[in-house]
């Protein structure tokens, strides 16, 4: 049979031996196919269908599976020692490959094996994965195994990634938010092969992903339902799983990793490190925003500012009589700092994007609060978490590195490409939202530019709040004239500066000087004046006009701690419901087991 193959933009006619596509021949004893499987040297997706031929991807899959059959032991199990050989057999040059790199869970053994393949056999891969977290994730670009990258978040590899892009080792596709990249898995970035991670598998390939399910369902579904191949590394192979998170017929190979997969305890904040200034900002946020709007459904960004808010609910929040009125429903990772609020009866429900090390037993014992399976353990799912955070919340609140005079904010610095993760999906007003809530309606009602945009039509607005110190570590200003993101974009050749939250989405800015209610402003000049009013002694703040600031305070567009009637002398650590990780363990009744690095006992 002749097929058209596109190589480097040119079309060739290539003959491929016909294969019976009706049988999925994974048998341990299956002989090596003659004709050395795919006669084509490029990924199957480059094959353009001839009319009437509709299962080329499937045939390509079958060929790859047949070639790998010799490596399979019982069921779908491949010995860890054969993993490199497996990867060399099932991946072809130019393939789109997903190496499961989540916010927390990492398919680290498979990633290492991918970095050990022969670059003369496997090269020019197009990596599509959400997080670039491990050294090996970038090593494959240095070795020429991979060439192009589409991703969301790079965290610890941010500086090396920036260098690789600059040196031309990485051809950058785009930097996405999680949900955006997941979306593209189902449109134009569908992985040909996915290397994923799970806690446990049985010999039929059923997977238990448990607490850290995270991205696995999305990756596996996108890959397998477009005739791709799925390999899972697991911590152990068992006869019976606690529950099935991924059905076995969506998984092609299972490798028992020689070591447990790496999980980063990303959301543990030690209360001992919360500063008095953070307590002040938290008090302001609770009184000036949560209470003012009656915020019940919320996502907290990662950081010490939001940890302070969580730890003030049972103390300051209680004192203001807010229990049951705010913070009842969360889209949130299992933050240990939320334990005191949960234990004090503040919280009705928490849906998690991922898990958190040490919170397993606590979550298991609070099934009314968390989403747990029939087996009693948490199942996270980042795609659903992002969806919930985007559409079903009334507020996002979090910190950032830099905010400019227009309210645009970014965590980018000159030499690091750290990407976005999920924050922009939380920190944005979902245009498709149609259901109303009091908080959403009030914020929309106050929107100073609404009349110019939608006339007299009522519409709500999500609150998007940034907590910012006027000066950060090493006296770096938190509010700047121009974001470093501009310089980064220029240096790395990005099409636009990486902005975490755009100014038109930002409704409130909280600094230790006060709260700017930006959405209440009538135009961009007024917004800038409100930002200047709370920017303290930064260059932006020094441009504030005293009489304008007074006017903004009178009109309630800016409110200082004094305007909010907050006694700043009380803003210190003694307000916190827990002041150490040990206190959190006590609050949990011994159900929270923090990782050793957080234990000072």
């Amino acid at each position, binding site marked *: 049979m002749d097929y058209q193959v596109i190589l480097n933009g040119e079309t060739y006619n290539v003959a491929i031996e016909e294969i019976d596509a009706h049988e999925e021949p994974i048998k341990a004893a299956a002989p090596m196919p003659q004709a050395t499987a795919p006669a084509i040297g490029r990924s199957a997706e480059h094959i353009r269908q001839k009319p009437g031929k509709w299962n080329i991807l499937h045939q390509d899959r079958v060929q790859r599976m047949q070639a790998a059959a010799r490596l399979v032991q019982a069921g779908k199990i491949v010995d860890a020692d054969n993993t490199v050989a497996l990867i060399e057999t099932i991946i072809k040059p130019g393939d789109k490959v997903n190496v499961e790199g989540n916010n927390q869970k990492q398919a680290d053994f498979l990633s290492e094996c991918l970095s050990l393949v022969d670059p003369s056999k496997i090269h020019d891969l197009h990596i599509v994965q959400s997080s670039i977290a491990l050294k090996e994730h970038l090593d494959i670009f240095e070795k020429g195994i991979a060439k192009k990258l589409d991703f969301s978040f790079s965290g610890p590899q941010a500086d090396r990634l920036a260098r690789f892009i600059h040196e031309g080792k990485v051809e950058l596709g785009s930097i996405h938010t999680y949900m955006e990249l997941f979306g593209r898995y189902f449109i134009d970035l569908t992985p040909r092969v996915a290397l994923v991670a799970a806690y446990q598998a049985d010999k039929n390939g059923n997977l238990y992903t448990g607490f850290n399910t995270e991205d696995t369902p999305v990756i596996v579904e996108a890959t397998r339902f477009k005739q791709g191949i799925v390999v899972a590394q697991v911590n152990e192979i068992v006869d019976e799983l606690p529950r099935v998170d991924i059905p076995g017929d969506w998984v092609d190979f299972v490798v028992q990793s020689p070591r447990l997969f790496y999980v980063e305890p990303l959301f543990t904040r030690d209360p001992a490190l919360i500063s008095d200034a953070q307590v002040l900002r938290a008090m302001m946020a609770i009184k000036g925003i949560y209470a003012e709007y009656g915020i019940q459904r919320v996502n907290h960004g990662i950081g010490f500012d939001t940890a302070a808010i969580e730890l003030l609910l049972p103390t300051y929040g209680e004192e203001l009589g807010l229990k049951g009125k705010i913070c009842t429903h969360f889209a949130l990772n299992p933050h240990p700092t939320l334990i005191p609020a949960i234990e004090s009866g503040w919280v009705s429900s928490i849906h998690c994007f991922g898990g958190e090390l040490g919170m397993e037993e606590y979550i298991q014992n609070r099934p009314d609060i968390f989403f747990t399976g029939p087996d009693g353990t948490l199942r996270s799912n980042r795609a659903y978490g992002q969806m919930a955070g985007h559409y079903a919340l009334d507020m996002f609140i979090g910190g950032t590195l830099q905010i400019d005079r227009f309210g645009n904010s970014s965590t980018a610095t000159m030499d690091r490409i750290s990407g976005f993760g999920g924050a922009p999906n939380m920190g944005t007003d979902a245009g498709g939202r149609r259901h109303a809530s009091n908080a959403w309606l009030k914020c929309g009602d106050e929107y100073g530019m609404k009349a110019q945009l939608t006339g007299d039509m009522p519409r709500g607005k999500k609150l998007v709040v940034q907590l910012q110190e006027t000066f950060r570590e090493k006296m770096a200003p938190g509010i700047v004239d121009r974001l470093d993101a501009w310089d980064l974009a220029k240096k790395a050749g990005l099409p636009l500066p990486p902005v975490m939250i755009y100014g038109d989405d930002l409704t409130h800015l909280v600094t230790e000087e006060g709260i700017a209610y930006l959405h209440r402003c009538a135009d961009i000049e007024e917004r800038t004046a409100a930002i200047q009013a709370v920017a303290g002694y930064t260059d932006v703040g020094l441009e504030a006009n005293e009489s304008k600031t007074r006017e903004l305070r009178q009109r309630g567009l800016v409110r200082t701690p004094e305007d909010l009637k907050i006694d700043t002398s009380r803003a210190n*650590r*003694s307000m916190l419901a827990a*002041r150490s990780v040990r206190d959190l*363990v006590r609050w949990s009744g*011994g159900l929270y087991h923090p990782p*050793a*690095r957080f*234990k*000072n*006992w």
Partner: protein
Amino acid sequence: MKAWEELISSSFYEATARQRAHGLVDAGTFNELGGPNKRLKSPHLPELGEAVSFDDGVVTGVGRIGARPVFVISQEGRFIGGAVGEVGGAKTTAIFQMALRLHDKIAKKYPEDASLRAPAIIYSFETGGVRLHEANAGLLAHAEQMELIQECRGKVPVISLIGSKVGCFGGMGFVSISTDVVVMSELGRIGLTGPEVIEQEMGKKEFDSSDRALIYRTTGGKHKTIMRDCSFLVDDTIGAFRDQVKTLLNMPYEQLKKYRSIGSLKLVQEQLSLVALAAVLQPKDSTDVWAHFGNDNPEGIPDMELEEFCRKAKLRHREVE
């Protein structure tokens, strides 16, 4: 400064050096000597382009507990990790000398009950040891303090209080253990070489400095109590430390001096026997040592609350009582 009553109930671990100094003695009695208004600052740091502190990182002064004059030395970890430099060291030795002179005066005036009227020194450690920017002067300060501690013997009780963030490391680990009594909280740490330095020199396999639980098992208050380097383990409040000091000051000197870890041939021999034990036992973790001293469930010790620990933990038997 918080009100004194509030200081008493606040965390010793989180308190500043000045808060500790004020809270440890009776309300309103602390007089700072060589305080920030005197601008006693390091001459070396500006040469290196480093910031100075007007108290050079140590609060010194005198107050009262009951009728007893109590001299206070309180190190501030927020300034260069509480490291000891020339000026701070001189302020500290001056406190020792003042206490000794006052003792001699009182002993002359009240020869019968000098021991219950004599001044005491409480030393609240929060330090990584020598300040490397001025290491020679810092080392000299260590040596002077060791000598002065010996001069104080039989005259001025010297009490170490350890429960602050930085802990008590480097040469100051030696100094703290040479005093008459060591009082710690669970959060206090004593050691010689700090965790990061051990890892840097000997590798992560020998000591993983990111494993805070390991650090506390090796240097923390509970371990030091089981090993009898620390005589009293108290709650993490300034008031709990203060109460322990009050109790100690009411003891006759003869009883107080029994808490010493060094200072006699017998005590030195006892310390050496511990070195020999380590060679035999080859412990992989502190839990091995705790088990050796008769603790059935050594893994459970870190999670015990103070009260349970004091009730249940088996301590090393002291040869010299």
